């Protein structure tokens, strides 16, 4: 191993973000994501960036969007209660097409719940939390190294598609320390948002030439004077009440993600080639699944892991196809059954789906998953 360091998940999130080019963090203290703010406050000014502790969660995401509008890569992090408060401006960033990374280190809810205990109870809020239809990209890391890598990828996807990207962590990964090999900075792929080369006040900011994926407006202050709004707007950036323009805008927003699914998807499968039984899992739960799979394999059971790292958009076709060859899927997640609904919707009657959930603040153990695997 090269330059291996002991790092906490929350720290890896910050270091990955810095490597991706984050130069502003706006946040509000909340367990179990607080280390992300603390470490950002130390590291950002060292790198010429800025950290600000805002007055609340709403202000934090608004501030991050403001910075992004002015051309600076920005992030905010929170946990359940704060994620609820961020929903309003998540929709704003999605509609106005402002790149932004929002981290949710999930904890037991609802409400204040159990602040220091793990959960994955915000998965559906990640998809449907803000009002109105909107595109979503959400990533789930299951190790410290993956947190680093996906933090970078979250920025890259957000820049490429000009959309907020959610890094859906959980307490298990956020507070986990393990060894991680730091990559050589030159080897990290960094994507910057496309912007116009010659900012022109007359240019329509949301106008796109054929073949362009997203609008290419320049950061504020570069000479392209234009308007950004949370109202449905046409390519001039000004509000419109035209049903035709509204339809065009909504479809473009949704399709820029769905049409590029192959680029966005990130599926980590293990032993699926010969598997009869698959464990569907994501985030911190994958660690128990991995141990359960190893134990099952040692017993001669053909068990594999189907683990989306990109959880939204959901890997519908991949899961449907896999399910046709399976005798059973065991869904393991730290909630009352959220992604379970999505698995059931996609798998239909291809194979039975069983569920290992946890909603008491405890951690799903390998033996609990193994028991479901062995259940007839």
């Amino acid at each position, binding site marked *: 191993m090269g330059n291996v360091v002991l790092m906490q998940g929350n720290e890896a999130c910050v270091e990955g973000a810095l490597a991706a080019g984050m130069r502003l963090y706006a946040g509000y203290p909340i367990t179990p994501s607080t280390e992300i703010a603390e470490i950002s406050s130390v590291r950002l000014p060292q790198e*010429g960036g800025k950290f600000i502790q805002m007055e609340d969660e709403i202000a934090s995401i608004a501030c991050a969007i*403001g910075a992004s509008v002015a051309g600076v890569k920005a992030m905010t992090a929170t946990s359940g209660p704060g994620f609820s408060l961020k929903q309003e401006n998540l929709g704003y960033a999605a509609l106005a097409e402002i790149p932004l990374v929002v981290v949710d280190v999930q904890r037991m809810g609802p409400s204040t719940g159990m602040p220091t205990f793990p959960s994955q109870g915000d998965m559906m809020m990640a998809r449907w939390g803000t009002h109105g239809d909107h595109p979503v990209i959400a990533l789930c890391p299951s190790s410290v190294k993956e947190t680093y890598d996906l933090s970078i990828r979250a920025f890259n996807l957000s820049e490429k598609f000009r959309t907020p990207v959610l890094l859906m962590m959980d307490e298990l990964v956020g507070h986990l320390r393990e060894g991680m090999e730091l990559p050589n900075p030159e080897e990290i792929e960094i994507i910057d948002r496309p912007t116009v080369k010659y900012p022109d006040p007359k240019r329509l900011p949301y106008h796109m030439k054929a073949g362009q994926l997203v609008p290419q407006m320049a950061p504020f202050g570069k000479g392209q004077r234009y*308007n950004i709004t949370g109202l449905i707007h046409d390519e001039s950036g000004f509000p419109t009440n035209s049903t035709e323009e509204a339809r065009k805008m909504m479809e473009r927003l949704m399709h820029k993600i769905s049409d590029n699914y192959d680029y966005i998807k990130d599926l980590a499968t293990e032993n699926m080639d010969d598997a009869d039984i698959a464990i569907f899992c994501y985030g911190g739960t994958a660690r128990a699944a991995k141990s359960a799979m190893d134990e099952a394999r040692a017993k001669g059971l053909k068990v594999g892991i189907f683990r989306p790292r990109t959880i939204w958009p959901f890997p519908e076709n991949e899961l449907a196809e896999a399910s046709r060859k399976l005798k059973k899927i065991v869904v393991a997640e730290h909630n009352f059954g959220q992604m379970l609904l999505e698995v059931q919707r996609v798998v239909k009657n291809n194979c039975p789906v069983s569920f290992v959930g946890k909603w008491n603040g405890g951690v799903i153990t390998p033996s609990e998953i193994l028991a479901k695997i062995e259940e007839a």
Partner: protein
Amino acid sequence: MVNRGDVKQKDKQMSNLVYKYMRPEHLPHIWCPGCGNGIIMRDVAQAIENLGLSRNNTIIVSGIGCSSRAAGYLDFNTIHTTHGRAIAFATGIKLANPSLEVIVIAGDGDISAIGGNHLIHAARRNIGITVIVMNNNIYGMTGGQYSPTTPKGAFGTTAPYGNLDRPFDIAGLAYGAGASFAARGSAYHVQQTINIIQEGIHHSGFSLIDVASVCPTYYGRKNKSGSAVDMLKWQRDNMIPAEKAAKMEPEELKGKLVLGILHQVQYKEFTYAYDQLIKRLYQEREENE
């Protein structure tokens, strides 16, 4: 300066302002006849003209409500954000690029109810943005509900028996929260308000200018305040210049509004302080290497 005696000259200057600082293709504006917001928007444009600010370097940030539409009419980098959040967005813009002139245009409900927390903390932080409040004492966009600046006893569609709340003095609120510049203008006092806005933009820290607007459509009708002209006349007759008010007894000031710069001090501006921190860390690192 505007030559009030020469109507032709005045018209010419007005149209210059419109063509230079506004987006004629988005005019006429949506504000009702007699609304004070148009006057205040023009005051902002005139102050910017007087200061010689670059259009490309000036950012207008607004929230939601009648006032927020100003961002769409002004030809700068403009961002129409979510209700109450304009100052928080503006904070991010200023942090990202402190060389930008960031101006927030907001309404009374926008800035002191749903956005009240952002207001007091931006004031405390002394971040170098200028907040101009179009204060019409009512929620106009939603049809006349009472706002945090509706006087006690006044009527709104949600205060059918008279408002039970006591109103905020927004300039006083900003001052109390630590704003280094707090002032009041009015739709009637055009020249004074332009000067105050100029001073506020020029001020390096956080500045707030609470500008008394008029809403004849909702506030005026609900409260039998008369026509728009009558409401402007009220401002003429009931606003006391700060210098004069300083010599008056509180009893004499009852029911009046004080006009002018109410408070101004110099503190270190937030983004300047942060840039100094970054420089210090760089220096320390160089010394250690």
